[in-house]
């Protein structure tokens, strides 16, 4: 979560269900699992921004780095490897919403975007107020719960804790209780899973 336009990285590949961005190790703040992110839409139409949740951060394998594992490495080699060598980090994002120009104002919708972002677009970490606005409703839960190959339960729990932290302290508990109620409604047929999500939400 950020109070400014913190760039996570540039889009490497994308679909309407999600996108992958590449970034270097020494970004000022390595994006975290469960963070809300935004990419500006370059396509024509009313969609201005696409919103997503980071569900995976992976560091690519590198033979040269592997060579040093287990060896006593001088500190300047560690710094060279980390800061100069651009060992790529790939950040996977699940698309969860858009911000559209309705003509009379901006509307945040919890849905898949009509078109994916364009390669090399910048992905930004959402500002606190964006996170608050996006999580004022819980319609995006269904998109997360239905996502494949995503640690959905953990992702929801961590992102909801992050959304709670974006609110004033006295609102956090209420926010989490409301989110829990919505989850109870969506997962009414799967009490074991619900229990797991709520447990994670409590301790995330």
């Amino acid at each position, binding site marked *: 979560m950020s109070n400014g336009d913190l760039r996570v990285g540039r889009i490497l590949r994308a679909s309407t269900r999600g996108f992958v961005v590449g970034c270097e190790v020494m970004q000022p703040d390595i994006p975290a699992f469960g963070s809300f992110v935004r990419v500006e839409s370059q396509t024509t139409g009313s969609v201005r921004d696409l919103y997503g949740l980071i569900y995976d951060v992976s560091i690519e394998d590198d033979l040269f780095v592997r*060579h040093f594992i287990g060896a006593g*490495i*001088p500190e*300047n*080699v560690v*710094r*060279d490897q980390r*800061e*100069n060598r651009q060992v790529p980090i790939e950040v996977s994002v699940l698309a969860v919403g858009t911000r559209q120009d309705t003509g009379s104002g901006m509307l945040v919708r919890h849905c898949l975007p009509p078109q994916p972002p364009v390669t090399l677009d910048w992905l930004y970490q959402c500002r606190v107020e964006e996170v608050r606005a996006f999580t004022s409703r819980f319609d995006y839960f269904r998109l997360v719960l239905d996502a494949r190959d995503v640690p959905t339960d953990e992702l929801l729990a961590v992102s909801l804790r992050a959304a709670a932290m974006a609110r004033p302290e006295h609102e956090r508990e209420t926010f989490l209780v409301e989110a829990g109620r919505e989850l109870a409604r969506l997962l009414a047929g799967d009490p074991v899973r619900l229990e797991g999500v709520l447990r994670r939400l409590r301790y995330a």
Partner: protein
Amino acid sequence: MVRHRNGAFAGMMVRHRNGAFAGMSAREEAWVTLELSRLTEQVQAMGEEFAARQRRRADLTALARQWLSEYADQGEALRHPARAARAAIPTGEPLDAAGPLPTTPERFTVVAADGAQISPDPHGIAQYYIVNIGSLVYRHGSDALPQAHSQPTLGYTEADMYENGQPVAGQLLDLRRDLAELTCLADHCVSEAPGPTVALVDGTLILWTLKDTPPADQERRVGDYVHQLERVRRAGAVIAAFVSRPRRGEVTRLLHLAHVGGDAKRFDEEPNPLERLPDRVVFGSLPASARSALFVSPNDINHRYYAPEGHTVHFFYLNLAAEGQRPTIARVEVPAWVAEAPDRLALVHGAIVAQARVTGDYPYALARADELAFVSGPEREALEGMVTKALLRAGVMTTLSPKQYYKTLTRRGRRKHRI
């Protein structure tokens, strides 16, 4: 076509000639046209031949080491005939001397540079070349972040592409890359704060590729090169060229010369049993981190152009393996003003070993300089895209040659089984 400093190729044009896969995607690597089953017997025979060769080499190595010890004190007598015999020229050190690892200053800097080039492709969309120089400044005795640099130069004008009517490719481009590497090192040395600094270049200090060019051309080119060596010297730094797994057999020629009593006639007439034995094998007996005796390179270019300017190229062999490890012998070349100053020579020796200790048995800064210089296949493709767009924007319609066009069709996604 992309050619790297030491002859490694990247990109599609040459892949079928030498089997280099650099720059190919994982998917492309998985597709092969080589009929491996037809090579099975040949590969097996090759293994047996190599094993037999290794046994023969062991005997020759023992003989070479015996001669090295036997004629160790005959350096002075051999000095004159050695040059005529194109054998390593002894210096004042016994031939079998082994210099232990000297102490190095607590803090010193190693600057390494390496280069790669994309040669003009006659079948490509446009005639141009790229020389890319990678360099790393590494400060020992400090946690400072090493400085990494990559400097590409595009050659495309008539003046760039032709020299005395000859197209700039092959050896001519190699020479431009060599000069660019050394200039990069000299620039770093000049801008360094005072303090012990070692400039390291991959390969050799001697412009061997000039041996077939006219003398006037040789003089001019070596002059440019020596000028950069001089800049390094005046900056107060030292310089060395590093050759990994060297193949030269100059010391073994010297041993043959010693065995025939320094007699040039007998040297020419009697077969040299050590003829195919590389020097590095002889020096495999060096203790860990120790260097061999110093020798002077017998190359004509060295004596004609480097020597008069005070840069006569000397060399020694160095065992970079750590204690208890199998020997890793490298060749190190230094100009006379380094070879003849014990403190400078000790700095080169110690710095190279310190660098090799970072990675294991190869200077870290050179490995990184190589990485910074390397132009991968996808980068080459991206550059081609930029060039195509720039040409179209300028109103120039261009295409690949028919040959190259069909290669692009046939060399991707071959209809073969994956291995």
